[in-house]
């Protein structure tokens, strides 16, 4: 645990910061989402969206270092600090332990984009000819059957 020296001028440390520093600097990761119940004792589920509850991660409460409200989100979205290396499980229709996939394999599937100081990596399958389908799960993809939100000129829609 990091040693905390009290301020000589009696200035109070930020509570969240203090908790986040407890496991040691750089030993926490941050997730954002909506906290929901888990069926496992001692766990919570964090949902990415209120509109789409098909994606969530299950986190042991013991691995949660701190939580706080997301600024300007009045629906209750939370920032959750977790210990780095904590076992979190992504829940969808099947369960995939997060982080089990070797990082190299993921990187091989990523296209790199460098602009100025930005170093971006985008999954290659997200290329132009692949489009997020209208399916509301938010994760499945299909060949573009329609360009998201844009119009089409349908052939032969008028009676012949």
């Amino acid at each position, binding site marked *: 645990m990091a040693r905390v020296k009290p301020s000589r001028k009696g200035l109070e440390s930020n509570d969240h910061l203090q908790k986040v520093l407890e496991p040691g600097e750089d030993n926490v990761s941050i*997730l954002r989402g909506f906290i929901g119940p888990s069926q496992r004792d001692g766990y919570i589920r964090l949902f990415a969206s209120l509109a789409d509850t098909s*994606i969530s991660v299950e986190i042991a409460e013991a691995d949660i270092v701190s939580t706080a409200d997301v600024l300007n989100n009045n629906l209750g979205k939370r920032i959750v600090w977790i210990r780095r290396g904590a076992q979190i499980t*992504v829940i969808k229709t099947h369960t995939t332990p997060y*982080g089990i996939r070797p990082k190299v394999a993921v990187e091989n599937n990523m296209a790199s984009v460098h602009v100025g100081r930005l170093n971006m990596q985008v999954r290659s399958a997200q290329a132009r000819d692949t489009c997020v389908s209208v399916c509301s799960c*938010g994760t499945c993809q299909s060949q573009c059957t329609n360009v998201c939100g844009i119009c089409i000129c349908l052939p032969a829609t008028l009676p012949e």
Partner: protein
Amino acid sequence: MAIDLAERVEAQFATSATSLSFEAPYLIEKLLADHVCASKDEAEVLFREVKRYFFLNRADQGKIWEMHSFRIDEIWHQFVLFTRQYMEFCTRYYGMYLPHSPSNAPEAPKNNPTQTTPVATFREFRAYYEKVFGEPLPDCWYDERNVNLHRRVLDARVGRLLFKEDGDRVELVDGAGEVVFSINSIANEAMSFIAEAGAFYVRELPGDLVDDEKIALVATLVEHKLLRLAS
């Protein structure tokens, strides 16, 4: 009989081709007055692409040729608003009204429900365009090349992905636990904002990014369908 049909098709094709030189000064004027376009040249180029899109669409009806460009689609919308002129244009050059449907429009009943028309990919569209017009597909067909500081963008997918800050990277993770997008932490503040905002102007991105970096970040997210352009 077959010759008649072939001749009629050829005649219709020739008529449709003349639509490419059709001019609509009233539309150009509106595009400038409404600040849809920044210059007359830009308006003319975008309207030319609308006409080319119509032509390509009707010349090969064996596939559904989607509208791939937000900017060109926007000009098509403006043209449709001139209802009488649009209908006259369609009838004169194509012999029918060219329907304009949002991609989520309820499907119209088909004459033959078992018949499905294949949808062309962007690559196929680009190849078809370049074959017919003998020139590369212009930049206005690529939404990501039309991102600037004053462009408004909408969330297409970001808000439904898990946002994870991990050391020196910010990651967007999908339901399979795979990283869809990752960026170094210099964009942390901008990415937090993007994840929370349903819609925003590129110039509004907070943090330390310079203008070119804001544009590059949004353009990359647009190109990969995580954000989309708005009007």
